[in-house]
């Protein structure tokens, strides 16, 4: 078994790493999900509009 030679305190670096990873991945996910929902709503609205026009005609 190797003896631990490095007992430094790296909590700042560790916290920052995990923090940045969380923020970036969360941002990408939220941005993608919101964009997807917006696009779906728009597509559905357009489809409904088209359908109503056809029925009017």
């Amino acid at each position, binding site marked *: 078994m190797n003896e*631990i030679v490095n007992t430094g305190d790296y909590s700042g670096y560790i916290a920052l790493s995990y923090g940045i990873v969380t923020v970036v991945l969360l941002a990408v996910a939220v941005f993608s999900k919101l964009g997807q929902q917006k696009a779906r709503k728009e597509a559905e609205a357009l489809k409904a509009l088209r359908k109503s026009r056809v029925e009017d005609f």
Partner: protein
Amino acid sequence: MHIFANPARFVRLADKIMPWAVVVFIGTLGYGLYLAFFDSPIDYQQGESVRIMYVHVPAAWMSMFTYMVIAVSSFVALVWRHPLAQIAGKAAAPIGAAFTALALVTGALWGKPMWGTYWVWDGRLTSVLILFFLYLGYMAIWQAMDDEEKAGRAAAILALVGSVNIPIIKFSVDWWNTLHQPASVMRLDGSTIDGSMLWPLFMMAIAFQAYFVIVFFWRMKLEIDRRKIAVLRLQEVSGS
């Protein structure tokens, strides 16, 4: 191949896989984080900072995996003119760029206490930086062209040229300067890492993979809907 060419079928398949991906993501992330922080030993050389590795290494793996996804889907898009394959490349690129950026940032945060500097012009760091530039170029060419179909094929050509270049860049940069330790997990003669550190690493790697699947499906659906909207708008204008 063309079984997957139908966007509606793809969306149905994605919706079926999605809950499983979410379950895997939450499970492996929770267990991986628990192992990473509470149930893994301190490295005798790296000390506590070894815990950064549990996000750094998966991010670096995913940066390469995502580029492979883009390269393969570009090949399929060019050879079989597969519409979903084009979209797949576009959907994956921002996720890959984010993973690459995270690999660089977490690597820098690990390097500062270990090597005494945030950045060195070492072979591996430099080639990951170049990979990030390749992602930027790929995303830029999508943005620069109005015609989605043409942009998709131009981006696919670029991605394939880049995929030929990545090994060349990697090996030339390694030759040029090297400080980074050699790969220690993915080795032919078995891993040199102890199991107690391998488990949190693999859990986090699976969590990152599941994250990719979830966000990738969201982005795929986003692109499919965007194309649908474009078609509907066009029909609206032309009054048919």
